């Protein structure tokens, strides 16, 4: 610190990174366009910035509650809870990380599944909770997803999954890798029942989740400007030692390369998906 700064009274010192200009709770700032937004308005807008359209991360439960019809929602697999089978420990115990994530998000693990209706159409919807250890897929995520698939088959319903995940959960090691096979195998069964599966890829969808259930939709939909890919941009950069092209691994890039069917604004997902399901299942929507 320079001598000049040292003699300044402390209230005159500003530090952009630590000083909060926006009190938490009532106001929030869009980190893309820097607009100061009224929290309640942002919530009404599905966590999409009303000024620039930036899609902020949205919790699994809020996502499902705003997506499904208000009535007939029923949670699936809530009784499935994580265990630390490997007694995994890096700097921190996996058990403690789980506890911490549970306190932070109010969820037991990184996925919430509900059955319900979408404009009257029977659906099962799954959503990753990114706030829970980066939405990583371990045994609980795999089991809940598969139970969602099984419920869809039982109810003759369509399946929708909202992915946002860094990939497999390292703390469950090979168990989490095997969830890729487990969830993909369940989708194969669903297909045999000719029930539609719509995969919605939100920011970010990477690694083991991208390389399994998220890429296997009958229709793959991405939210705008979501990072979607197998390997992370940093790993790729280190491997190929080149600068990545602009927009690499973003939704628009994926659409151009044929990986996804469409990019849909979060606020239109209810309308667009119900329209698609109505066509695929030969049923009509209410309202």
């Amino acid at each position, binding site marked *: 610190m320079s001598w000049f700064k040292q003699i300044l009274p402390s209230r005159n010192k500003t530090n952009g990174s630590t000083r909060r200009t926006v009190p938490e709770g009532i106001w929030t700032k869009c980190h893309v366009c820097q607009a100061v937004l009224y929290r309640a308005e942002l919530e009404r807008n599905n966590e999409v910035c009303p000024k620039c359209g930036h899609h902020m991360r949205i919790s699994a439960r809020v996502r499902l509650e705003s997506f499904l019809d208000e009535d007939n929602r029923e949670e699936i697999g809530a009784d499935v809870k994580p265990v630390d089978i490997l007694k995994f420990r890096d700097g921190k115990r996996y058990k403690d990380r789980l506890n911490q994530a549970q306190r932070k998000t109010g969820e037991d693990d990184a996925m919430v599944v509900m059955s319900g209706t979408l404009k009257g159409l029977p659906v099962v919807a799954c959503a990753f909770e990114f706030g829970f250890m980066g939405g990583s897929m371990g045994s609980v995520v795999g089991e809940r997803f598969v139970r969602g698939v099984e419920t869809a088959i039982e109810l003759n319903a369509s399946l929708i999954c909202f992915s946002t995940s860094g990939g497999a959960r390292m703390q469950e090691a*090979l168990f989490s890798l*095997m*969830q890729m096979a487990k969830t993909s195998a369940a989708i194969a069964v669903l297909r045999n029942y000719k029930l539609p599966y719509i995969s919605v890829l939100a920011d970010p969808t990477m690694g083991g989740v991208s390389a399994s259930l998220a890429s296997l939709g009958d229709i793959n939909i991405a939210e705008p400007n979501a990072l979607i890919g197998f390997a992370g941009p940093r790993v790729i950069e280190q491997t190929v030692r080149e600068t990545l092209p602009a927009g*690499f691994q973003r939704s628009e890039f994926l659409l151009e390369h044929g990986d996804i069917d469409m990019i849909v604004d979060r606020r239109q997902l209810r309308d667009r998906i119900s329209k698609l399901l109505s066509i695929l299942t030969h049923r009509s929507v209410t309202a």
Partner: protein
Amino acid sequence: MNFLDFEQPIAELEAKIEELKHVGNDKEINITEEITRLKKRSRELTKSIFSVLTPWQVSQIARHPQRPYTLDYIDRIFTDFEELHGERYFADDPAIIAGVARLDGKPVAVIGHQKGRDTRDRIKQNYGMPKPEGYRKALRIMQLAERFNLPVLTFIDTPGAYPGIDAEERGQSEAIARNLMVMSELKTPIIATVIGEGGSGGALAIGVADCLLMLQYSTYSVISPEGCASILWKSADNAKEAAKAMGITAQRLHELKLIDRIIEEPLGGAHRSFDDMANKLKLALVEELEQLRSMPTPEVVLQRQNKFRQIGEFKQ
């Protein structure tokens, strides 16, 4: 012979034996006895070092530059091998070898990752890291196998699927995901063997099987120990701890019931005797295949689906 760090005592003994052999040629003194004694000691030393290997040391053996690769096994285990190339869309990926052959006289399909032995081959085979076209070639051969009633035998040995710009552009995720889905209900028996490095999704993409075998000193994990360490420990130097925490060895994974069988390696590792290793693996493959062949195919598929349905540890 290349020796790893922890094998240095063995290397020194072996060097001494070599030296004595030359001396023996020059002089009249009979040193055969001494050589026999030293060889015995070397064997015992190897046995004792190899009986207490850490997961990190095992991962070094799994990645040993002289370890037998898929083609080394194909040469020794199968007859009538015909390599088949390409996925019919874009290109042939030399990081995955695929083809048809005979095992003990009976027709099979063979698919495996291939690492290069020298620099030229390593570059050509991209260090055993497939691109989407490699996985799509594997898929094509699996579906061909299904149509013609050939059991599928796969050999896993990869650091992982290639993390490159072109691989992402051509849908690396989709290629892997599709293989997982199709393999889960492929109507023919599948046996997968991890022969070296089982690296994450890039390994699993040819690893959804009725029967999963691992060679004694091979590894299988969701991420490399270095990758795990650099994320969780913030430094790749903690790879040893990561290797231990993740439980990447055949022994640990067998205890966790994630693999079906361990194939014992020759003393000092598979690279000490390709023939011996191939022989043991062949016997195991023939045995497992016989068992799968004794079941009607729909039952094999149902059993495979149930197996993957059950994987996972949670409470409720």
